[in-house]
């Protein structure tokens, strides 16, 4: 409780300082809007439905892209963990691709798919797949040999051993992978929307910027941040914590 109170006081203080600095400095709203302007832009956006529409569109792309990324990542991760040759070739390629932000693929994606949904989803998939692959591979490689030995003495082997023991034992890594994949996908999505086409939160941000509506720009920025945090905190961190506790990887 203590912590929440501190956080609320901090946020309120930040808003008060922001509001007074802008008022004293006398900047206009097209350079540095006040928190009250941002709030109005936010309310207006929700009232006329643009932001709701944008949220829906962005989330649709994100869910499609993330679902593909998770499936692909799982498949590739299993392949890399099981095949030494694949790991040494494709595996090192994937590791080096990880240092390339997914958004730099956008020009190519637009050439391939056109300036549309597909190009954006491609960026989202790229952003999520690599990190999911790397975590899935680690999860399978790090299954405790004790589980495998125990299962073998109970007559489990081959496919049965893989499906009934190795995959479930890798779940904690897969959950962490999914959480990171979501974070990368969300960033990739916003970047791709700003640079390509709408509707979507990123597109509205770009649109507001073109019309000098900095209040709406900041409003969308805040929305992006809040959604990112809420999904991470409320969904992924909670799932991750539960899994870690159940799998005995964390003292309860």
């Amino acid at each position, binding site marked *: 409780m203590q912590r929440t109170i501190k956080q609320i006081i901090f946020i309120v203080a930040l808003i008060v300082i922001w509001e007074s600095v802008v008022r004293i400095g006398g900047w206009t709203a097209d350079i540095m809007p006040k928190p009250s302007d941002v709030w109005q832009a936010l309310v207006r956006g929700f009232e006329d439905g643009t932001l709701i529409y944008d949220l829906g569109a962005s989330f649709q792309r994100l869910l499609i892209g993330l679902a593909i990324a998770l499936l692909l990542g799982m498949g590739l991760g299993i392949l890399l963990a099981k095949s030494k040759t694949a790991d040494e070739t494709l595996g090192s390629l994937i590791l080096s691709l990880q240092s390339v932000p997914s958004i730099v693929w956008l020009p190519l994606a637009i050439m391939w798919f056109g300036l549309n949904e597909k190009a954006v989803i491609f960026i989202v998939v790229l952003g999520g797949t690599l990190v999911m692959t790397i975590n899935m591979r680690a999860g399978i490689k790090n299954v405790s040999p004790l589980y495998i030995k125990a299962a073998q003495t109970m007559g489990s082997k081959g496919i049965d051993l893989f499906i009934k023991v190795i995959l479930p034992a890798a779940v904690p890594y897969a959950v962490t992978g999914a959480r990171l994949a979501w974070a990368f996908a969300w960033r990739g999505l916003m970047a791709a929307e700003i640079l390509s086409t709408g509707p979507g939160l990123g597109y509205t941000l770009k649109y507001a910027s073109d019309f000098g509506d900095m209040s709406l720009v900041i409003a969308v920025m805040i929305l992006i941040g809040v959604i990112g945090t809420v999904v991470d905190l409320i969904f992924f961190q909670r799932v991750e914590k539960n899994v870690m*506790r*159940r799998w*005995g990887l964390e003292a309860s």
Partner: protein
Amino acid sequence: MFLHIDHVDKQFTNNKTVHQILTDIDLTIHEGEFVSILGPSGCGKSTLLSMVAGLSDVSSGKITLEGKEIKKPGKDRGMVFQQAALFPWLNVEENVMFPLRKEMGKKKAKETAQRFLQMVQLSHYADHYPHELSGGMQQRVAIARALAMNPKVLLMDEPFGALDEQTRARMHKELETIWVETKKTILFVTHSISESIKLSDRIIVMGTQPGRVIADIKVNIPRPRQMDQKEAAELQRRINALLKTEIDKVVNEELAHAANH
């Protein structure tokens, strides 16, 4: 001849130097016997057990169970490790059902699991998850799981080594009861002299470098045994003397190793 370890050697090669782990182990274990394998760390007793389990290969010689050579792990040999090795994504009952799921229907497997959970007095914990149980309880589930598949031999690799003193004493009693009830053949690896005296019909004392059998002792003390009984104390002294030279050897080796580096 029930379980026959027939002139077994085990070595492995590391950086081109050959390490002799076990040399000429030759043992016959009878059906229903409770046999302890006792020795200092590094004598290869766990390796020997894992070869009986089929988890590692023999370098030469062979191991047979009822005349059939052991090459791979199988359900005729149940294994209990030092760590319970329960699957955390399954609850207690599902863990015990794991080895049963292919050979019997779900209902029958459930009944069997219940029966063996009762034997280890954990039937009320059937729907708990492993992380909710204490170390001793987890180990009891592991024993139930191994017994549920009705193996011919129960292999136990220092199963109570990670437990505290009181829990261990209780587990000794429980294991003894289970053994009397089921008449299973048990091969029990330990480094505790008192544990081996308390539990077994026969103690195989192993020496180290290379691992070999240095004594095969019958224990004829009536059960339940107390360590302050005269015969038990005497046996403990005898085994202590046997092992002292072996432990000195390990210590000297380590000192020499430290001096060379």
